[in-house]
């Protein structure tokens, strides 16, 4: 084996066993909090709470992490959940259990709409999706008539089947696997990555970037819509009537912590899974520490700022706006 080849195989090996930073972060948080609070942190109650929080964030973050791979931002997940939830309530007396289908349909439509607006009108995605979510929030409040509405039925989504693990998590697993599988092991995933990392290169290789952008947003909307079915029941069977910035930001943090930046090409749902775990462990750990909730907010904000700086360190030479 020549020196050159040996060098290459070393690089290969290093790349293969290269652990993403988020894993170290996760392990670090786990060890620190377990040592700090040995009798409070890893109790069944605390674990169950962490898994519940995990479900909340991952269901919101799956779709946007696909969009992030093509270099855009999708904040419609909150709007789809709110408006979809209230439409579900609204249509239940008319359509019966079939009313649940309104959520994936709304997601599909929203994703397609955003994608199409983006590639046709070239308006930046973060503002487009933020405005659309605000629009949906307004419609939600209007349809609800000022009261949070309880959606009945579908209790099997949340009925306990085993200790510690919330049933919602089991229902979320197929969605998580679907998102990861699509991005990792299908030609579609490869093309989406190509569009995100080098649009011009992808175009020259015969990939229609605009078409794949629309596909990414549609897929994201669909995943958010399907996830919202579980989410509605997971978060107590009703949806809030006002826009909660914290809820908008937490999934985005999880995506960034995982190492997917909204500039495209890198990361994906599997990294978001790790990012969500890290976020949940950190949040629970801080929560366990009996810090005042106000202090907690400041710390979460600091972690967030640190996370985006850390995650952006690979953006040298990229045009950043």
């Amino acid at each position, binding site marked *: 084996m020549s020196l050159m080849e040996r060098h290459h195989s070393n690089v290969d090996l290093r790349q293969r066993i290269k652990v993403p930073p988020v894993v170290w972060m996760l392990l670090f948080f786990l060890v620190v909090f377990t040592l700090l609070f040995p009798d409070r942190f890893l109790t069944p109650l605390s674990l169950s709470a962490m898994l519940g929080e995990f479900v909340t964030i991952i269901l919101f973050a799956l779709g946007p992490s696909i969009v992030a791979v093509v*270099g*855009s*931002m999708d904040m419609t997940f909150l709007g789809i959940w709110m408006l979809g939830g209230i439409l579900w309530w609204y249509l239940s007396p008319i359509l019966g259990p079939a009313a649940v289908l309104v959520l994936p349909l709304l997601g599909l439509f929203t994703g397609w709409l955003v994608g199409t*607006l*983006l*590639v046709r*009108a*070239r*308006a*930046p*995605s*973060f*503002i*487009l999706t*933020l*405005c*659309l979510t*605000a*629009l949906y*929030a*307004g*419609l*939600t*409040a*209007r349809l609800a008539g000022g009261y949070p509405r309880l959606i009945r039925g579908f209790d099997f989504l949340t009925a306990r089947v085993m200790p510690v693990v919330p049933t919602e998590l089991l229902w979320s697993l197929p969605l998580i696997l679907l998102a990861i599988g699509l991005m990792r092991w299908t030609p579609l995933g490869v093309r989406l990555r190509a569009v995100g990392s080098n*649009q011009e290169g992808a175009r020259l290789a015969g990939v229609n*970037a605009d078409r794949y952008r629309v596909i990414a947003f549609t897929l994201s909307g669909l995943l958010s819509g399907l996830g919202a079915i579980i989410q509605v029941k997971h978060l107590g069977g009703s949806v809030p*009537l*006002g*826009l909660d*910035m*914290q809820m*908008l*930001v937490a999934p*985005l*943090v999880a995506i*960034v912590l995982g190492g997917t*930046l*909204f*500039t495209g090409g890198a990361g994906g749902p599997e990294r978001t899974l790790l990012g969500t775990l890290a976020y949940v462990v950190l949040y629970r750990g801080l929560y366990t520490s009996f810090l005042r909730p*106000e*202090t*907690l*907010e*400041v710390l*979460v*904000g*600091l972690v*967030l*700022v640190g*996370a*985006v*700086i850390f995650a*952006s360190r690979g*953006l*040298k030479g*990229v*045009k*950043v*706006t």
Partner: protein
Amino acid sequence: MDLVRKGFGENRAIIVSVLATIVAVIIFQAINPFFLSPQGRITLVYSSAYFLIAAVGLTFVMLTGSFDFSVVAQVKLAAMLCALYVDWLGPWVVVVAILVCGLIGVTNGVLTAVLRVPSFLATLAMSVFIEGVALYLSRGFLHVVRDRFLRNLAVRFVGGLPMVFYWALAVWIVAVLVAKYTRFGRRLYALGGNVTAAELSGINVARDRILAFAICGVLAGLAGVLYIGQYGGGSIEMGATMMIPLFASVVAGGTALTGGVGGPQGTILGVIVVTWIQAGLQMLGVASDIQLVVFAIIAILMSIVTVDRSKGSIVT
């Protein structure tokens, strides 16, 4: 005819804004005759003045092609600082609040221009942090301001209109002069138009970007000071519900999210359109949820109208 068409093409956003203002005023005046009465005018001034100051700040950042999500959080923090420490610091609290927001602006600028974090992400994160600090300082309680100096800053009447009107007017005039007639202003247009070209022609892009964010912070701080002076405290319910109209008014004024076009001279029109529509809707008894829908639609439509499509196919 060609000249007319060219003029329309260049000033499309401003023309749309002016027409929208006129139509909105006619409709609201026809439905509610109090709309343009002296009392109605004062209400309009109160709802648009501090808003204009914050919007002018955001305009500077958007001119460079960046975005600042944290404006609303900064307004909130400045208002909170004033309410909490006015008894202790006296008039100096105004300086402190504005300086703090200026520093936040510098931080936003450094994050974007030096550490190369995309601005919408950096400022979104900063906004969570600032809100956390505001919550930490206030402990979630309501604070009422009785300090005469602080109140007079906003609500003392001069020539039939409250002081806050003159502050907003002064800020706007200075901002227009800076953007149109100073080297710094022209550099902002240059780097917003084409950052690579600006860099190659010797502009210190990082410094100017940081300065733009700092201006945005200072103006957000001033807006917060006047806000608390005007309302005297209370729970500060802002957030996404203020961000959307704020953004809508900047894009409605003709400043594109892609940077390089528009400027503070248009922002005043955007603010007038947005606050008048808001006030008109309130007078008609339209609920705040539908107002949010209206502004979201305006924001989406105007960002599509203003966006600069000559910049190739790069979308984010």
